[in-house]
């Protein structure tokens, strides 16, 4: 697979090349993955360096990590993107292979801090796009003051070619992306619970 080892300094050097653009746009750096919390120690070091350079930082996490790692990273982060794929523990286990208990408890802990959070839901037709799941997600989001919005991310089939290249069977065969109309309905469903929602983000 692609990728190479880089030091904190090397990362900062690349990031700071675009400094003049961040100054104007208020933009900054997003750490995503994979799962950035898998390298929590290194991530803290990079975030620390970004903070010293007054760069805006975002961490995009699936939420499955030790609470200690999560909270120590969150302290250094300006905005957290936090995935909530499914509220139902049984379904969560069936589709992702793990329980969502740790994730939800992490979210609760994160919610007690002041950092703004965007909850992100990958909308997968027939899997988690039902009113029950999204309604429950929206209620949860609305109950945590630091959650600013719910981002609904329409499923896209770009992963299939990757699966083929990795000589795996596609896990979600013949699944279509939700239509813009479907997505708009879901936005309304979420917003009915009193929390802002957007498509993408």
């Amino acid at each position, binding site marked *: 697979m692609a990728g190479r080892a880089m030091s904190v300094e090397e990362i900062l050097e*690349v*990031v700071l*090349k675009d400094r003049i*653009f961040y100054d104007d746009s208020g933009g900054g750096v997003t750490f995503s993955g994979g799962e950035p919390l898998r390298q929590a120690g290194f991530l803290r070091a990079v975030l620390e360096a970004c903070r010293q350079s007054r760069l805006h930082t975002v961490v995009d996490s699936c939420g499955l990590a030790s609470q200690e790692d999560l909270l120590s990273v969150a302290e250094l982060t300006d905005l957290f993107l936090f995935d909530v794929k499914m509220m139902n523990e049984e379904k969560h286990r069936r589709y992702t292979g793990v329980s969502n208990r740790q994730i939800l408890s992490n979210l609760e802990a994160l919610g007690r801090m002041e950092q703004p959070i965007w909850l992100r839901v990958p909308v997968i037709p027939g899997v988690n796009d039902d009113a029950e799941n999204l309604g429950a997600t929206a209620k949860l989001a609305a109950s945590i003051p630091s959650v600013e919005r719910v981002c609904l991310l329409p499923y896209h089939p770009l992963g299939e070619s990757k699966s083929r290249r990795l000589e795996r069977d596609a896990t979600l065969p013949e699944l279509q992306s939700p239509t813009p109309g479907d997505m708009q309905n879901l936005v309304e469903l979420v917003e009915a619970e009193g929390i802002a929602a957007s498509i993408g983000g």
Partner: protein
Amino acid sequence: MNERTRRLRQESLDLRPSISSERAELLTDFYQEHFGRHSVPVLRALSFFHLCQNKTLYLGEEELIVGERGPRPKAVPTYPELNCHSLEDLRILDSRPKTSYQVPERCLEAYERKVIPYWQGRSMRDRIFADLPAEWHEAYEAGIYTEFMEQRAPGHTVLDDKIYAKGMLDFKKDIAESMAALNFAEDPRAQEKHEALRAMGIACDAVILFAERHAELAENRAAVEEDPGRRAELEKIGEVCRQVPAGAPRDFHEALQYYWFCHLAVITELNGWDAFNPGHLDQHLLPFLEQGLAEGSLTRESARELLEAFFIKFNNHPAPPKVGVTAAESGTYTDFANINIGGLLQDGSDGSNEISHILLDIVDEMHLLQPSTNVQVSRKTPDALLDHTLRVVRKGYGFPSIFNADTVVEEQIRQGKSLEDARAGGCSGCVEVGAFGKEAYILTGYFNLPKVLELTLHNGFDPKTQRQLGPETGEAASFADFDELFNAFERQLRHFVDLKIHGNQIIESLYARQMPAPFLSVLIDDCIAEGRDYNAGGARYNNTFIQAVGIGTITDSLAAIKELVYEKASNGLDELVAILDQDFSEEEPLRQRLLHRTHKYGNDDDYADDIMRRVFQSAFEAIDGRPTAKGGTYRLEMLPTTCHVYFGSITGATPDGRLDGQPVSEGISPVQGSDRSGPTAVLKSAGKMDHVKTGGTLLNMKFSPSLLEGQAGIDNLAHLVRSYFKMDGHHVQFNVVNAELLRRAQADPASHRDLIVRVAGYSDYFCDLSPELQEEIIARTEHGSFGQAEARSERAARRDEVLVS
């Protein structure tokens, strides 16, 4: 657009450009009778008067703004006193597949019988070529530089606000005062001034007469018009043409019609480059809009309709075709009139207003080929105007281009202009900076930087023409280090700049003496006050540009030589030159290494960018500050228009991996496809150039439409523009069409006739472009993300994909 505008627009789009011999015939008649009887300026003014008095008028059925240069829309006159088309030229123009002009049999007949016999050997082009030294011709034929004035007169200027307060009768008073102040006893140039001023006075009368003829035509039409609505319009047109240009305009309609008469007069008098241009149209028209709305004589709708009619007039006027054309060549119908939107007022405050937005709406809705438009963005320009601009840009027609109004002022201050004149200035043509209404700023020719490197590598010898063109500055093997090579390059550069300037002296002097422009001189300060013609240095400011082309190609080439030859010593320079001479045959692995494993300009890589700055500084020092024949100053400009394709075609393989004949890089853009670190890196690299020392730079960027979706896409692009301008970037323009669509248009031109793309400092119909230029535009890197880090990961992902598949 209302129904009428829609019809007028469609008519303008549907008409095929044609050539009219009327002007050539009238002029030849006049010269046959009058040549030798008057001083040159007066002869020119009287011949202009003769044209205004006798040319066929046109008043379209539904028109509100009136007047055409030819006998009907899109009929283009010729200028045999400047360059005389041969019968073969005319036949090729008629039959060539792209940008053709229909040539009526009558025109061929008139040329054969009357025009060619009189003008052959007498035209400016014939005289210029006869006077230029052999050495100049050899370098010109080798493609080291081009020459603008072999095809058209110097013009390259823009009007300021003076006509909105003064009529031609007022200008005549100024002329009379200037004449009265002449001191024949003390001033040895008094008689010269007298003749120049007399000519200007005659030119004012000619334009008044031209307008009165239109008034009469409109009044006659009104007398027999049955539809009362149209009758009222014709009566109004008659009134307008009686008022302007003799007197100052009293309302919005008169203001537009006045400018239009000035425009027609300037492009009838001579075929000056870049047609003519109203400059800050939104600023000039605002008082008339406000007054009309307050009085109730105007509504926003009627103001917009008049502006649309005005835009259609520009589109009715294709550029005059070149002479000495070849069948394979394609030109452009665009004549480079480039309306400025926004910018600054003379007092330094924001100059944008309600009309700025109306103009953007018109550009958006009409997307005509002409006029071009640009938005001048200063630190004070409201985000709302930039936002509106980018929404139009996103449509993908390439309009408008975007300029940094603060840098435009700074560039002019460096040239020694007053702050007020600089702020009232702006940009025209492609990217050229000028003090509107007060400056002759003349492009004289493109200059081929990569070709000069090619000659340096061959000790001054040109492998293409097999001639020793430059001085002997050392064999390739003889340079001990990179600096020695660079010094040799600088000597070659200086030699060819000297040669170019020598040629310009001859041409400028010829124009000053033989081809004055009395009407244009009325409009540009301080020609009247000085009693001196525009072409003889009468303008307040006179700057003459040489436009350097191929900075990307030469930078990457020198970076490759520096690294491979002088640092890694993996090839000798003589060895590399031998490989270039063979166009990399049998050396594809080396070529791939040069293409992909060396430092490239456009990636925010200081190794390459420092070389770019060094080349830029050398070109600047060779050109800037040197005196011109008419008392002006030479300046450097970084603009290619489409010349990078021609320059590439006569330049052999280059050390950056470019093959023999391929286009060189355009403007200050990186070599096509070599910017692989995303748009922010391109802007950072381009921002390292000292734009303030130029008279304009041109940067092209191409985005995939998906990147600019939604408000977020517009906001991101706006931040990109603002950030580039913080680095003193002069200009940026965007193509927002994906490669796939362009490929489809190539395969099926018939269904894509209306596809307009950004070429250089202008937009053009994609299907009218030469195949080479089409390929070149497709090859410009299409950016799919904004930042450097993202571009890196994207690239890694792509590489990954290539490896896996």
